[in-house]
């Protein structure tokens, strides 16, 4: 599991952590049954307060993305397809919002904005490195 934290962005670090791990789970980068690093291990690896890590972990647990196993390690939960689809859409809608806001601020027409978006999507599909 690779997470990159910006400690000076002003976004609470537990939230950055939670968001990145959540993304890795719903995108399938972290598979169900996979174990998350222990609070202590991750805290030392990232130089973060252990409280921050447990806070992020407990939020993910509350969201139903991970669960505690006997022995207290956290593993990625098995999610059904409907559930994953909903979560993926929610996530995407959130990211699309800020792009839409930029389009509005720049005064682009809906058609132009959609055109650019479609173009980029097509380009990204052809680009193998983006897998």
């Amino acid at each position, binding site marked *: 599991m690779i997470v990159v934290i910006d400690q*000076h962005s*002003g976004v*609470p670090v537990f939230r950055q952590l939670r968001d990145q791990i959540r993304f890795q789970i719903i995108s399938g980068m972290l598979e169900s049954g996979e174990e998350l690093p222990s609070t202590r291990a991750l*805290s030392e690896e990232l*130089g*973060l*307060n252990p409280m921050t890590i447990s806070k992020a972990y407990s939020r993910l647990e509350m969201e139903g993305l991970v669960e505690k196993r006997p022995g207290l390690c956290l593993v990625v939960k098995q999610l059904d397809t409907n559930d994953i689809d909903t979560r993926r859409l929610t996530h995407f809608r959130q990211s699309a919002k*800020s792009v839409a806001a930029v389009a*509005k*601020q720049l005064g682009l027409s809906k058609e132009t904005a959609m055109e650019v978006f479609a173009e980029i999507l097509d380009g990204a599909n052809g680009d193998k490195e983006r897998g």
Partner: protein
Amino acid sequence: MESAFELEKLTKKFGGLIALDDLTLSIPERSIVGLIGRNGSGKTTLLHHVVGLQLPSSGRCTTLGHPAATLGSEQLANIGVVWQENRFLDWMTVDKHLRYVASFYQNWDRDREQRLLGDLELDPAARVGTLSPGNAQKLGIILAVCHHPKLLLLDEPMSALDPISREQVLAFLIELLHEDQATTVISSHVMRDIESVVEWIVCLDRGRVSVDSSLDDLQDRYSEWQVTSARPIAGDFKEPWVLSQRTNEHKAHLLVRDAGELIEWFETKYDVDVQSQSLNLERIFPLLHRGSR
């Protein structure tokens, strides 16, 4: 949770000057706390009271369960302190100085000492009086942590350290929390230094506590809004939670407090578009002081 130290209605006067003003504060055990505030806000005076170096004009301070004024050797052996201005025995070498201080403690951890000397690249043979300010701070930190203190007080400990040493010291503080379950209080006005390791922020403003909150909550409370409007913006926004603003015809830049839930309401009311962003500690800091803007 037990508290590592506790101040109760503590006031400290120096002649006519009130350095600490009826201050009540409790620092929980096993935490890393950032003590912030402007110059002269009372940070060092507060730490002096915690170890009994200064006595309150009124009120009380309790440290590790004991009145701070009468801490005995048993309690002091559980405390580590790095002061802003270190007082060393300049004629000793680094190693001699370490041996000298180690002799006061039964549980001095030679392995930790050696590892820190290596990590921080401090030469044991160097004469203490010739150390650069940065290296003197490193020595101060090593001297304060090798007896496994339960309470570690750091008063501007990293002001002279280069970024690499700073990272190492911060990483070590996390380790200390794991290994010793220590409580650490770092006073600093370099917000970038402490932002990554502290979970709790106490801010002093002219001898009073202006903030006593988790860093997460603090970051959630304050944000910056970029407001875009299709129609010209008519004057300043009057909402009391708008802390500062710059507006021109179609754009406004606001600093707001506790307004996370109000974005949609605001967008509808003024027919505008709001992009909200978090603020880091450095930018929140000026907002925590009365009339200082």
